[in-house]
């Protein structure tokens, strides 16, 4: 059945009126080969951004989530700031944050602040994803049953110790799948920085396309992303299964 549907689909597409033209502009092997080195170099920028941003996002997400789950009246201003941050950054399109930081910060002409588009857009991604990750972590923290906290308190653990040794380890294990889902999504969204001209894979592909009137490189760039995100997804599945096996035995 699947095969049949695929065959029909392929037939419909390849017999369409525009197919010869499409084949020429999007599936040109020589163009794919010619654009490959530039895209590969660009993609290395995506990978670098992802690798640098991910640990920072995780730290920010955890810190913001912990801040939001504190109860001390002393920390009320900090909690307010955390709520404002997550609400704002989740509400604004990531692309907008990228453009704002890339154009806005250099316009301020502040001395000592970087004007490197790579770093500015990286900060934008970190800010945007930090808010998402914070909410995921917070949902994990809130999912831990109060009896766990009661029994940590009964052992005379302090609130920070309870968070560090009892709540957070369980919360992070529980939200690992949605968390890793966010990271797969981040890997894709590094392409958003092409909008302000950071020469990553998508930018390189568009650049080639605009110059040579051939868009095959877009598919090449797509293949690069898929080549990373699919193994990443399988890896996260495997991690999740392994953690379950360890705990259930």
């Amino acid at each position, binding site marked *: 059945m699947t095969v049949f549907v695929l065959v029909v689909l392929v037939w419909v597409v390849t017999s369409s009126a525009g197919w010869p033209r499409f084949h020429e502009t999007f599936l040109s092997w020589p163009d794919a080969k010619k654009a490959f080195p530039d895209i590969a170099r660009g993609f290395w920028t995506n990978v670098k951004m992802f690798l640098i941003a991910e640990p920072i996002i995780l730290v920010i997400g955890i810190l913001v989530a912990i801040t939001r789950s504190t109860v001390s009246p002393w920390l009320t201003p900090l909690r307010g700031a955390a709520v404002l941050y997550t609400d704002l950054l989740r509400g604004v399109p990531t692309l907008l944050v990228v453009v704002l930081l890339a154009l806005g910060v250099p316009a301020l002409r502040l001395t000592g602040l970087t004007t490197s588009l790579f770093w500015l857009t990286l900060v934008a991604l970190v800010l945007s994803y930090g808010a998402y990750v914070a909410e995921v972590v917070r949902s994990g923290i809130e999912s831990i049953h109060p*009896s*766990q906290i*009661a*029994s*940590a*308190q*009964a*052992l*005379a*653990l*302090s609130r920070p*110790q309870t968070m560090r*040794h*009892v709540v957070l*380890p*369980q919360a992070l*294990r529980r939200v690992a799948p949605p968390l890793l889902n966010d990271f797969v999504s981040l890997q894709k969204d590094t392409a958003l920085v092409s909008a302000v001209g950071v020469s990553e894979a998508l930018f390189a592909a568009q650049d080639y396309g605009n110059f040579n009137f051939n868009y095959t490189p877009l598919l090449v760039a797509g293949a690069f992303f898929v080549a990373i995100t699919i193994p990443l997804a399988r890896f996260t599945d495997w991690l999740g299964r392994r953690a379950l096996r*360890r*705990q*259930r*035995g």
Partner: protein
Amino acid sequence: MSGPVLSARGLRKSYGDRVVLDGIDLDIHQHDVVCLIGSSGSGKSTLLRCLDLLEQIDDGVIELDGREVSDPHVDPRAVRREIGMVFQAYNLFPHLSVLDNCTLAPVRVHGTDRDEAESRSRELLTRFGLGDKASAHPDQLSGGQQQRAALVRALCTGPRVLLLDEITAALDPELVGEVLEMVRAEARAGMTMVLATHEMAFAREVATRVCFLDRGRILEQGPPEQLLTNPGEERTRQFLRRVLPS
């Protein structure tokens, strides 16, 4: 004879309009084994949680060694370091091995050296038949084993008083015995304990004193042979008729 280790005076606690504890007076002396009996909702669990400062009380005083600890200025952790508590639902930490469950508080709270904490935990685990389960995770154990591990965890910090909140209530009947055996051993060793329980036969066997709780009050208390066979109050007699089949 020195004063009580733990005592409550005029303890009051309510959740909204519902009064849960309505003026509790209770003295627990060293080596006492006090059993709290009474129907569900009579306030047994709440009383234990209040004694461990896990619940805020509305009125009254709790004293540990004659020092008022229900004062909001007292750090509850200093009190909980001296008291061990075990819950009905075990509440072991599922992400930690049995051994790590046992060493967490000694290492993090009491500043015990890790090696020392581990050897003491292993010793206790072995004494209570869990020596081969030290590296297992809680989910790999039976209910009875989990509850015994939870008891060992509470004992690892060397508490002066042990509070046990219906610790056999969630267990299959055939697993109750192994847990009670452990409590019996502790009672024999002179551990001071307060336990909320539905096991009347066990209460009669280990208790030095039985308290019957009814609607947030200690309606009656006394030695088990007297209170369980010849109670003074009609409510106690009604309750015992319901829980004792004979």
